[in-house]
């Protein structure tokens, strides 16, 4: 009796209350919901916008594979992953992960796992548009690879 994750990749913004309700509405078996919202920072005023390129088709499939791993690993009662693409301005939402479970640790761990793997394996690329200059592609961080490794059993 495995759950089906809700996955969306689009330019559209998301709303925390809507996504939380999607997981919990009408249910009395959920004890914990953890949400992670990733937002666009202005890097101390230097950044005017982020441009998020993605690989349509593969992005959704890869998120689906990561979500499936989380569902197999933790006793989740609901899972949502929304990743925006296109142009995003400072203060705007980029990504949402929401995990529901009977108990808190599974919800925390699943949400944290999803974020680590989204960073290192979902096919998205960020270009930073800095004030007064052309865009520059963000470089992948070794710390993100390290974060992913801690989930290897």
């Amino acid at each position, binding site marked *: 009796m495995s759950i089906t994750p809700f996955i969306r990749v689009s330019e559209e913004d998301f709303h925390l209350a809507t996504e939380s309700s999607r997981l919990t509405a009408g249910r009395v078996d959920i004890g914990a919901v953890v949400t992670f919202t*990733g937002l666009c920072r202005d890097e101390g005023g230097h950044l005017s916008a982020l441009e*998020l*390129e*993605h*690989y349509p*088709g*593969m992005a959704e*499939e*890869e998120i689906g594979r990561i979500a499936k791993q989380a569902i197999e690993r933790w006793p989740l009662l609901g899972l949502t992953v929304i*990743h925006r693409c296109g142009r995003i301005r400072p203060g705007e939402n*980029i*990504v949402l992960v929401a995990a529901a479970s009977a108990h808190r640790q599974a919800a925390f761990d699943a949400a944290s796992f999803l*974020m680590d793997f*989204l*960073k*290192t*394996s*979902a*096919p*998205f*690329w*960020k*270009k930073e548009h800095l004030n007064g200059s052309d865009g520059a*592609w*963000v*470089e*992948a961080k070794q710390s*993100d690879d390290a974060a992913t490794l801690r989930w290897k059993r």
Partner: protein
Amino acid sequence: MTISAQASSTSSTNRAVKLRYFAWVRERIGISEEVIELDEGVETVHDLLHWLPTRGETYAEALKQPDVIRVALDHRHADHAQPLAQASEIALFPPMTGG
């Protein structure tokens, strides 16, 4: 065209694949996708990353550090030792920076 040539066109050599490029790989090659015929002998991801630069300057520039390039075969991550096998869509891109 002989019967044996037709047979070889359905094998792993000389077959047409769609290549897709993303982020700075796309910018440096200058196109986002193309359909090409793979040369005989281009059997693995590693082979592909070393053969593509022979197609021109932009490829050579985009792939001058082949070790950092990530590759997906039909929407799945592949490491460089992996055979291309019957993949019909092959994507080349830098390390991901989403999330």
